């Protein structure tokens, strides 16, 4: 029985933790970046390219790169922390920091969603901003009451896709931590993989895959139900 397996619950908890942090953080950073990169400044295409590039780097290469960045002894992150007098944690080798490390790393790849937000921003009619300016709205009010509501369909799309991706989170954990330390990064898909290919329990793994499918469908359905309340299609 799946429910009698403590590792099943560990994996489920880990994936919910990751989804709850990485998806909102990805949306926040993606939207913020898109807003910044929507400015009519010189060389903007270079900036856009620079922020988009990490998202097309193969996941395994990115994972290896971050293993070096987060290396507790010789990694760039801890070296920078040492400059300001902070002794950084052991990151991926720490049970407390391993999941946050992967969440931080996920922000590195927001370039893909940033591009979609950018397209969404370009789609917002200029007349709405002009009307807001006439009404005396300042920059923050224009973002809050024009940009974000008009961007909600794109945010909704990225939220659904991000959650589906988060529930299937696998490669980074497989390459960087192998589920450790102490199962702290044992995500659902990783546990499914171990059951199938390490313990050769294909039936069990198949049952886990069905549970994942139902979970993803359920969460997606909930999101679709909720969209009436917060997604504006400009109709």
């Amino acid at each position, binding site marked *: 029985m799946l429910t*009698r397996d403590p590792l099943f619950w560990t994996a489920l908890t880990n994936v919910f933790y990751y989804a709850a942090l990485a998806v909102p953080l990805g949306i926040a950073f993606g939207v913020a970046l898109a807003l910044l990169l929507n400015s009519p400044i010189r060389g903007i295409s270079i900036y856009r390219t620079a922020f988009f590039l990490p998202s097309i780097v193969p996941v395994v290469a990115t994972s290896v790169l971050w293993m070096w960045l987060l290396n507790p002894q*010789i990694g760039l992150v801890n070296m920078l922390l040492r400059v300001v007098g902070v002794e950084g944690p052991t990151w991926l080798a720490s049970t407390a920091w391993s999941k946050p490390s992967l969440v931080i790393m996920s922000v590195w790849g927001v370039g893909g969603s940033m591009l979609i937000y950018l397209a969404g921003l370009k789609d917002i009619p200029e007349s709405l901003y002009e009307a807001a300016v006439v009404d005396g709205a300042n920059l923050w009010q224009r973002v809050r009451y024009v940009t974000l509501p008009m961007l909600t369909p794109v945010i909704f799309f990225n939220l659904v896709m991000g959650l589906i991706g988060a529930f299937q989170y696998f490669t980074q954990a497989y390459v960087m931590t192998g589920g450790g330390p*102490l199962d702290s990064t044992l995500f659902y898909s990783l546990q499914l993989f171990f059951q199938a*290919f*390490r*313990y*050769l329990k294909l039936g069990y793994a198949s049952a886990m895959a069905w549970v994942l499918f139902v979970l993803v469908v359920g969460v997606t359905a909930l999101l679709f139900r909720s969209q009436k309340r917060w997604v504006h299609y400009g109709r």
Partner: protein
Amino acid sequence: MDGEGIQVRSRAARQAMWAVRGVFIAAAAAGILWLFVGYHAPRPQAYPGREKVVFWHMWTSNWAQVIRRICDRFNESQDRYEVVPLTVVGGSLKTLIATAGGDPPDCMAQWEQVIPAWAERDALTPLDTLMPPDEWRDLQGRLYPAVRAIGMYKGHFYGLSTGMNIWAIYYRPSHFREVGLDPDHFPETLEKLDAAADKLFKFDAAGHILRIGFIPRGLGGWVPVFGGSFWDPAKEELTLANPKNVEALEWMVGRAKKYDFERVLQFEAGLATQYEASWPFISGAYSMVLDGQWRVEQLARYAPELDYRTAPIPPPAGGRMLAGWSNGNFLVMPAGAKNKAGAWAFMRFWSGLDHPERAAEFYTWGGWLPITASIADTPRYQQYCDKYPEFRAFVRTLASPNIQVTPPVPVQAYLQSRIEWAEEAALRGRLSPHEALERAAKETHRELENLVVGK
């Protein structure tokens, strides 16, 4: 837009279309050419009249060449069978599926802990049923205890090893001399090993580790040294939380605490990888380290000038000499194999049951530890040990009755992962050694119960 502009655009579009077509045609032509010139079909039988023995293994590159040579030698040695080897990456799952589908290989080389799991599912042929009782009795007497144990499950013999792995301590004589220790007299007890390790640790002014004297890892290898075991052969049950096992883990935790486990992790994270030429022992990051016999050849290849020695693990007071854990490569015969006689002949040939001198040659090709004293004692193998004197510590240890293998339960891989988890939980101070082993025992028992329910 004027007509000329439209014409220019349509001409450009046609050219682009032709360029795309050209790329596809070139790719297709290259593919066809590859089929005729570059593609090598699986090698047909070199001896068409003979009975085919399909042999799957998981070795690649240079290792696959060694396997090919062994198969060629077998094929040349007789005129009835032909072994056809095939590298099958991810071979465990594929073999299991092929067995379930009724078309397995006749023989398979394995190193994953699959014997109990597969035997429990009737996916393996018991090799003892292929031998007359006298031969089986004789074989049991000749195989080293660990070699025999790794192939056994519920009274039957399923896997014949072609090379085992043993762990011993590698140490740097120059580091010993530097702190006033005599490298010619390696510590004979665990207590003396701890004292030597304490002298060998090096720190900078800020207390950061510069060199590790010795930090024990791998609980499975230490449990036998303390006189413990994960398995009670009489009752045929797991004994993960056996007091001796707890004692071993307590000692490991004590050593980790003394040098602050987090600090050790931090130091190790900054070291190169553990692979071959970049093994940190070579750079002097460790004065003593527990590792396997394969490092001897690697050191000869990548650091021929390195001054190092090996020694068996010293026991604590009341512990066992020449003790440790072992795993290895072994040949299995899936249930439903079509040519069992041919596969068994090949197994006997490779393992050297009928001709130790010949097998000794194969073992030296692969740098493998022999499975019987008769192979270890052959002039050929002794020459190999003379060439690599540090290999002797491993050969001597493998012969010991105190070498244990993973308990023969049908959830070996899971059990192994839980033992590793318990070790880590204790080293990190999450649970006490006793609690950690109790939890591993409880989870493994639950897994075993699930297996019974699932049958």
